[in-house]
């Protein structure tokens, strides 16, 4: 089997580190990673508890395929109650940390309680110790990793931790691993900050076995051969989407005032690959996570002559560059078409540990507040926070990372910011979480997916892309969203990445790998539906309900201005009842007794 069948539990209040057997009954029902960690969280904590209290728990969970030779088998998930949303948070990351945690012999690491002083966790296979973090508390993610890598003199040690944003309880602080990969969404880093745990340093030397190694090896090679279009993803990464959404008219621009950005051609793959007037090229190379055969990551450099870094050589090196979501949030959403400025703001997110989607979405909301006069330079500390200002973007990003001045307001997230300044309707959020890079008017299925996502607005909780690019008519969208939410939950729980699905893999390829690794005949729809309903139950107990399955007024009442969806608003009210029905939920979006019984949840 690909599970180690072992959990590491660390109580930060008492300082105890213990191991225990994995509950295999639950593993067989929820697979691993996102699904299995959600089950543990649901059973072990009160969903109504304050996300930043000692009663919350943080679970780092690998999937059964994490650490195996399966392509993209390096994923892990951080599951907790999200301080941005008040909902269940499950934030997924690649890089090399997940594989290392699995190699150390653990399916899952559960952090509970809270420390009274800053600490970090050091894991080397069976050796586990809680260490004093006074030397690294207050440091950036990058500084922390450098200090501890030098201390342990082990180039293969991997880290997942927080920067100052997490320490300052920024509502969208993330957990960064390998310096520029992140469990980015919903504020999982703030929960670590509240518990005063700075980072997890892990080194593992054990292998990962599986149920049928021979069959697994054969299937890995077979499904790899079925992977197509990798060259495109290697060259352009997810940034290829920029031209597609801009051409289609679904690129949220200036806080969703528009769905097309006139500066998109300065943020697209060609802009990244073309030397600027100084002869500087943004991209250096692509990058791959553990076991990945795609390599969609962007490794980039900022032009040393750019205003953001010209006297700051520490930012002249290569690091994680713009993905599509970052380019949207730190570019189009703010009306900024300066690729170096957006790259710099992205570096700041990695360094201080912030979700760039939520940071960009919040700055965009602040820019609209500034534009309508709800805030002015006396609020922002003298910064002219105008749409399109690359200078303002860079300044505010650093202030948010440090929690300084108006940056402390930005660190609250768009919802709390807009409420504070009297314009809650200007927050482009669902359940308090900022929109990703698709507009729910020209992509109606995405609108439904945002509204019903258990972790707040998210582009990776469903797969309505094909249907949305095919038609703006709403017939069939509820089914596509409901069924793809289950498929995605299954993939997220396996330890694999979603992106092979964009490179030729179908669900059968994922299932073949899981069956060979875990033994059995897994049904992704059944397992995924069980996971989706469990997350829903957590949210209901946390106090969320139908009122939270909605979209901002702008998306429901202001028609898209251009593109294929010109003149349309999101027809959520027409799609939602069918979506609830397809899920076996009542009119209030609550799973019925029959549904829970069918899924062995009740």
């Amino acid at each position, binding site marked *: 089997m690909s599970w180690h069948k072992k959990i590491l539990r660390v109580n930060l209040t008492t300082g105890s580190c213990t191991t225990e057997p994995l509950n295999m009954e639950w593993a067989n029902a929820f697979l691993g990673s996102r699904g299995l960690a959600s089950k543990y969280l649901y059973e072990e904590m009160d969903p109504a508890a304050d996300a930043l209290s000692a009663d919350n728990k943080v679970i780092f969970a690998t999937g059964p395929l994490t650490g195996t030779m399966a392509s993209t088998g390096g994923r892990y998930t951080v599951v907790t109650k999200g301080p941005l949303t008040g909902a269940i948070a499950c934030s997924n990351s690649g890089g090399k940390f997940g594989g290392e945690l699995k190699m150390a012999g653990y399916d899952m690491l559960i952090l509970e309680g809270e420390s009274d002083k800053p600490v970090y966790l050091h894991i080397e296979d069976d050796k586990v110790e809680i260490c004093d973090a006074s030397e690294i508390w207050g440091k950036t993610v990058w500084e922390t990793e450098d200090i501890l890598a030098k201390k342990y003199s082990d180039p293969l040690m991997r880290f997942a931790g927080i920067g100052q944003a997490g320490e300052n309880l920024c509502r969208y602080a993330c957990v960064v691993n390998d310096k520029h990969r992140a469990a980015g969404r919903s504020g999982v880093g703030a929960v670590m900050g509240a518990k005063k745990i700075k980072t997890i340093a892990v080194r593992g030397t054990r292998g990962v076995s599986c149920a049928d190694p021979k069959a697994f090896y054969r299937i890995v090679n077979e499904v790899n051969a079925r992977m197509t279009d990798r060259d495109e993803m290697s060259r352009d990464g997810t940034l*290829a989407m920029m031209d597609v959404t801009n051409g*289609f008219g679904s690129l949220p621009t200036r806080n969703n005032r528009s769905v097309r950005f006139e500066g998109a051609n300065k943020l697209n793959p060609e802009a990244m690959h073309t030397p600027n007037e100084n002869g500087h090229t943004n991209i250096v190379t692509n990058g791959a996570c553990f076991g990945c055969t795609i390599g969609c990551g962007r490794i980039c450099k900022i032009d040393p002559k750019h205003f953001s870094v010209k006297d700051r050589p520490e930012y002249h090196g290569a690091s994680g560059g713009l993905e*599509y979501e970052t380019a949207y949030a730190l570019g189009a959403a703010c009306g900024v078409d300066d690729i170096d400025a957006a790259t710099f703001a992205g570096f700041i997110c990695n360094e201080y540990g912030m979700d760039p989607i939520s940071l960009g979405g919040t700055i965009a909301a602040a820019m609209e507040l500034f534009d309508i006069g709800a805030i002015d330079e006396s609020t922002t500390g003298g910064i002219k926070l105008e749409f399109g200002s690359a200078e303002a973007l860079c300044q505010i990003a650093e202030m948010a990372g440090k929690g300084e001045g108006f940056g402390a307001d930005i660190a609250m997230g768009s919802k709390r910011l807009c409420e504070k300044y009297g314009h809650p309707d200007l927050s482009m959020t669902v359940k308090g979480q900022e929109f990703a890079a698709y507009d729910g008017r020209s992509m109606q299925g995405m609108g439904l997916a945002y509204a019903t996502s258990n972790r707040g607005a998210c*582009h990776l909780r469903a797969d309505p892309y094909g249907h949305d690019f095919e038609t703006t008519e709403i017939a069939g969208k509820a089914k596509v969203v409901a069924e793809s939410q289950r498929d995605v939950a299954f993939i997220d729980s396996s330890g694999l990445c979603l992106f092979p699905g964009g490179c030729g893999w179908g669900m059968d390829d994922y299932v073949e790998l899981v069956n060979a690794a875990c033994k059995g005949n897994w049904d992704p729809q059944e397992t995924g539906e069980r996971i989706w309903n469990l997350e829903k139950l957590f949210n209901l107990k946390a106090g969320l309900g139908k009122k939270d399955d909605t979209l901002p007024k702008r998306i429901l009442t202001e028609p898209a201005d251009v593109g294929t969806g010109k003149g349309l608003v999101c027809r959520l009210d027409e799609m939602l009842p069918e979506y609830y029905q397809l899920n076996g939920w009542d009119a209030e979006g609550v799973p019925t007794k029959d549904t829970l019984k069918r899924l062995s949840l009740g």
Partner: protein
Amino acid sequence: MDISVTLFGGLRHFLPAGSSFNKCSLPLGEGEHLDALLAKLPIPADKAYIVIVNDQKVAREDYSDIIIKPDDHVVLLPPIKGG
């Protein structure tokens, strides 16, 4: 007449030689339809794409019904997924 066509993402590989980064101009006779224009691009039959003419998506079954006019702007998008 010459019609402006923009190809995004991986579809760029099917632009005629000498095209700019993602645009080309294709000759088309008066009164000819969209399917005749698309046939001038060497895109394999099994390659999926979306066609937008003047900001309006065109359904596949309508390719042979749409008459292309001189000022029309035709865009081809690959149906990729997000990240």
